[in-house]
């Protein structure tokens, strides 16, 4: 082989490696989380709107739909979505607004939903090992019992608390210590009239 050329490659590697200052794996994690934050912020309003539209369909059907829909058998879904219940949509928007501006108060992830039924669960993957503040904002009647559990399975509780639902939500803050990078689960149980009525949004933010 061309020993001298092979030596040049070895020297190139040695010299270049000495000059490289790697950003580090932490920088890669931050970059990935920032992209997820942006996606979460962009998607949460849409998610709330989509869920709100779904609830609106159910409520309209229950309370007497427009004539075109009333003629259909109850088991069939309408082809066209009716307008969402304005009250529910307003609550969803209020909860979403309460999250704040992510540019001024960044979050790790955020989303929102309407309490369709009494129970809600969200499995959140790839939350880094760290300590977080979980802010939950609930708009409407009643209250939510919020519980955070570790991992994808199991009953290890990381945090729990009661979130009062208000017309102008002020929010409740829980402290969550994620023991290792991976999943955690958020459960919300509606009480005192919050089921099928309240809308909420939550965000995980760093404590520093």
């Amino acid at each position, binding site marked *: *082989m061309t020993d*001298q050329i092979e030596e040049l*490659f070895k*020297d*190139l590697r040695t*010299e270049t490696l000495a000059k490289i200052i790697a950003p*580090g794996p932490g920088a890669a994690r931050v970059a*990935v989380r920032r992209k997820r934050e942006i996606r979460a912020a962009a998607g949460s309003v849409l998610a709330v709107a989509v869920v709100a539209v779904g609830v609106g369909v159910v409520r309209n059907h229950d309370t007497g739909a427009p004539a075109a829909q009333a003629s259909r058998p109850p088991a069939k879904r309408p082809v066209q979505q009716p307008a969402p219940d304005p009250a529910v949509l307003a609550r969803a928007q209020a909860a979403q607004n309460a999250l704040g501006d992510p540019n001024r108060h960044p979050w790790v992830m955020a989303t929102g939903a309407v309490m369709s039924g009494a129970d809600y669960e969200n499995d959140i993957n*790839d939350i880094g090992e760290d300590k977080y503040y979980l802010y939950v904002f609930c708009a409407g009647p009643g209250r939510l019992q919020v519980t955070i559990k570790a991992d994808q399975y199991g009953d290890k509780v990381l945090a729990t608390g009661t979130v009062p639902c208000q017309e102008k939500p002020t929010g409740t803050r829980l402290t969550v210590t994620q023991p290792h990078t991976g999943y955690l689960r958020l459960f919300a149980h509606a009480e005192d009239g919050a089921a099928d009525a309240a809308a909420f949004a939550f965000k995980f933010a760093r404590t520093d």
Partner: protein
Amino acid sequence: MDSHPPSFDELYAAHYGDLTVQLYAYFGDRQEAQDVVQEAFCRAYARWRTISRYDDPVSWLRRVAWNLALSKWRRTRTALAFALRQHPAETAVAGPTPERVALIDALATLPPVHRRAMVLRYLADLTIAEIAEREGVPEGTVKSWLHRARTALAERLGHEEGVTR
């Protein structure tokens, strides 16, 4: 056999530097190489649950890094990158020795497949079989590429070509 897949940090520590060197040697711009390799690691992290279970996550990383670099270079060929390829010595990278710049510039004169074969062979330490599989060509073709590349480099760098192993 190691039953524990490498952690993301371990993979990063073991391979960030080497991947950067390979792309630097191929494209001639160290900072761009670093940026591309970092982006490849970001993509690996975003998919870590899947990537960590691969038999060879490094191979995945290398492929992604090279593809990113090729896309970037095709889209945005900067005047600096062009100048590095066209004009020997002085410019660009902070304080490399003349021999290192000469090697980078000499590599730049090779046809892309020859250059890539040399980088994969002598910086990524791939075997001829691995390079052949990666490039989708017979091993004999890879051997031919390497032979012609070594001859061209030797001529350009003013070294005498030895017996090919």
